[in-house]
């Protein structure tokens, strides 16, 4: 079936550097995309979202980019901090079922 996936299961980044987490989606009918952060023992936490009529959206230290041509989504985290260590999921919504579908996740490791 249609699903959202991430390119890398693990990403290691030096503290202070920028992190880029990528995601590819396959459902062309999806019109809403979300990034979630999940820390150990907790539920997914909303970070930022973007609608399909936008290419870029910025939050505090985070930016989401959407490329509908190649069905690609990315999350950029500026000046990565130890507290950013978590698993990051991209998720899509829209189409016939109109429910949020999650990808497999990327674990972000912060190196000292």
């Amino acid at each position, binding site marked *: 079936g249609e699903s959202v996936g991430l390119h890398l299961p693990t990403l290691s980044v030096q503290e202070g550097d920028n992190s880029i987490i990528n995601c590819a989606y396959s459902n062309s009918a999806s019109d809403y995309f979300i990034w979630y952060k999940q820390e150990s023992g907790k539920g997914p936490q909303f970070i930022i979202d973007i609608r399909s009529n936008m290419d870029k959206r910025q939050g505090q230290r985070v930016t989401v980019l959407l490329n509908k041509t190649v069905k690609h989504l990315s999350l950029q985290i500026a000046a990565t901090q130890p507290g950013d260590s978590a698993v990051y999921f991209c998720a899509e919504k829209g189409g016939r079922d109109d429910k949020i579908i*999650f990808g497999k996740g990327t674990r972000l490791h912060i190196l000292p």
Partner: protein
Amino acid sequence: EAGVVQSPRYKIIEKKQPVAFWCNPISGHNTLYWYRQNLGQGPELLIRYENEEAVDDSQLPKDRFSAERLKGVDSTLKIQPAELGDSAVYLCASSIRGLGGYTFGSGTRLTVV
């Protein structure tokens, strides 16, 4: 605001035993979801409620799983009997009319031995 509250946080049961999870959504959120998250995977939707009506239960294994949301507020998810493969984290989430991203609870980690 308390957020989505789930209990218990952890549960260990023997296979073939029943188990129940409870969820209290954010006040005013009429849409409630139960997700299951296997180790190393993203959450997968089990059932979605709009108020007290289950509008999408296509992924709920109905032979052993059941859910209810009486009065359109709190919800319970039950497994009877539990199997080893049911070991996972069960997440509850809520939203306003299904709009935007959902707010998740901390989940119940179920271990079936």
